[in-house]
Every structure is written in C-alpha cells, then in structure tokens.
C-alpha cells in the first residue's frame, strides 16, 4: 500500500489542528475555573441565562462547533484550511501520510466530550465545564505534542463493548 495516495493526508495537519485546539481548551479551562463559585453573573438575574453568558461556556460552544465541523467536513474545517494554505507551504514536503478517518473519528470523540460538558453546565452542574474542557485538553495536547491519538485508540475498546463496528465478516 503506497503512501501518497490522493486520499491520504499529511500527518502534521491533524497535529497542528490538535495544537490550536489544545490552546483554546486550556484557555477555556482557565475561564471555567475563574467562573466556579462566583456569584457575579454579569448583572443577569436568570441563572440559566447567566450560565449561557459565561465566557467559558461560549468558548467551549465554539470549540464544540469546530469539532462538529471537523467531523462533518474535514476538508473545509478552518484550522485544517489554515494549515494547508499558510503552514504547510512553509514546511518541508510531507514524508508521512495517514488515513484521514482516524483524526475525523477523534474529532467526533472531542465533540461528544465537549457537548456533555456544555449540557451538564446548562443544567447547573458545578465544575462540569472545566472538567470536560480539561479532559478534551489532555487528549488534544497528547496528540499535538506526543503524537498519541487517544480518540483513535478508543476505537477497539468501543468495538469490544459493541458500540461501534460491524459484525465480523468471517466466523
């Protein structure tokens, strides 16, 4: 199976995307921590509206939207486009290529984690937002810095539990 088939992508692309995502998530953890146990609600009386107006909520919603974009249309997702247009031309030509499906699957895992955090935050669970953002940060940081893709590794575990995957082709 030769590498540079048109379907395959430069391995540095998803790591670049994970790096930007990790920075945004770390910022979101910080904002979320500052908002824990504070009564200042920007002068808004309704607690639900106040939770929606929190900067940490808005930023995590933006990150979740970017995850969703990465799942639905990886070719047009903003950070990927930024990488191909601006970063890649300045680097040496790519030597390693990979299947685009694993990073796409991992974006889906990131989406699930952040959406759970957003929903729990909306119903008023304290700490839910910074903890979800921190979990997603760990995965994004390990991908960007160490090249470890936890979302990809999760696939076999999920398959074992029977959440994903198709029945075996042969007995």
């Amino acid at each position, binding site marked *: *199976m030769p*590498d540079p088939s048109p379907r*395959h992508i430069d*391995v540095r692309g*998803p790591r670049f995307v994970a790096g930007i995502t990790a920075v945004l998530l*770390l910022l979101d*953890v*910080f904002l979320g*921590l*500052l*908002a*824990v*146990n*504070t009564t200042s609600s920007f002068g808004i009386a309704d607690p639900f509206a106040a939770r929606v107006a929190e900067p940490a909520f808005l930023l995590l919603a933006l990150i979740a939207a970017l995850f969703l974009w990465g799942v639905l249309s990886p070719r047009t997702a903003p950070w990927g486009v930024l990488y191909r247009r601006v970063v890649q031309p300045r680097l040496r030509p790519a030597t*390693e*290529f*990979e*299947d685009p*499906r*694993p*990073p796409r*699957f*991992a974006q889906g895992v990131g989406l699930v984690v952040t959406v759970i955090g957003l929903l729990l935050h909306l119903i008023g669970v304290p700490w839910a937002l910074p903890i979800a953002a*921190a979990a997603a*940060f*760990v995965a994004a*940081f*390990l991908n960007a*810095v*160490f*090249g*470890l*893709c936890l979302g*990809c*590794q999760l*696939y*076999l*575990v999920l*398959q*074992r539990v029977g959440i994903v*995957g*198709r029945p*075996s*082709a*042969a*007995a």
Partner: protein
Amino acid sequence: MDLFFAVIVLAVLLAVTVGIGVFLRWAQNRPRRGDPAESVDPRRLGAESLGDAATLLQFSTEFCARCPGVHRTLADVAAQRPGVLHLDVDLTHRPDIAKHFQVLQTPTTLILDRHGVVRTRFGGTPGRDVIELELSRVAEEIPHA
C-alpha cells in the same frame, strides 16, 4: 475561584498531561513477554505461513493514525532480514481476533518465533531499534529441543 488557584490548577493539569505523555511513550517502547504455551495459526489470520526465522505480527484498524507508520517501519525491518515476515492484520472487521489476542489498542505488534509462539508484545509505536533488538533475541536464540 480566584486567579491564583486557577493558575495553580492549570499548572497541575499541564504537568499531569506531560507526565501521562512521557509515561505512555515509555510504555510503548517496553516489550512484554508472551505466553510460551500459545502458538499462532497463520491460516486464522489469513496468511499462508509464518516467517522462517520470526514473524512481525501487526494489528491495525481503519481508525488508527499511527498504524501506517508502524507498517512502514516493520515492513522495512522484515525486508532487510532474511526469514523475517511482516503480517499486518486489519482488526476493524475482525473483533474475534482482537478479543483472542486481547488487543485494546492499535497498533499492537507481536513478535513470533519460527514456531509461531508469541515471544514479545509491543503496544503502540515502538522505536525501530527496540524492534531490531527483540527480533535478534527471538530469531537468533538457540532452538529448544
């Protein structure tokens, strides 16, 4: 929460994450010994036979970013050593094999001796030199009676 504690928590989060990364990278280069009683039947994996000296048995899935890189490394190692065969088995549609070998992460690489006995197991992306070392140990060992 005040600014000072938020910064402390952030620093702890960063330190723990780096710690996890360093540990996982270390664990990937640590070979584990296999069960000497169990031998692998190549036909079950869809292969004709095993390597004459040793076999590098790699497990991959479609959703595995690091598998193609490990595939290249192992194929290269096998090509340079006579009698060493590289098999790459896609587990995406074969959960039965994944269950049998207790594979919970891909890539996972097993080094089989010439009898098909699992001698070494690597989870993740081991370095080329570590594979070469283990391969030498397995392939050049004096055969048991």
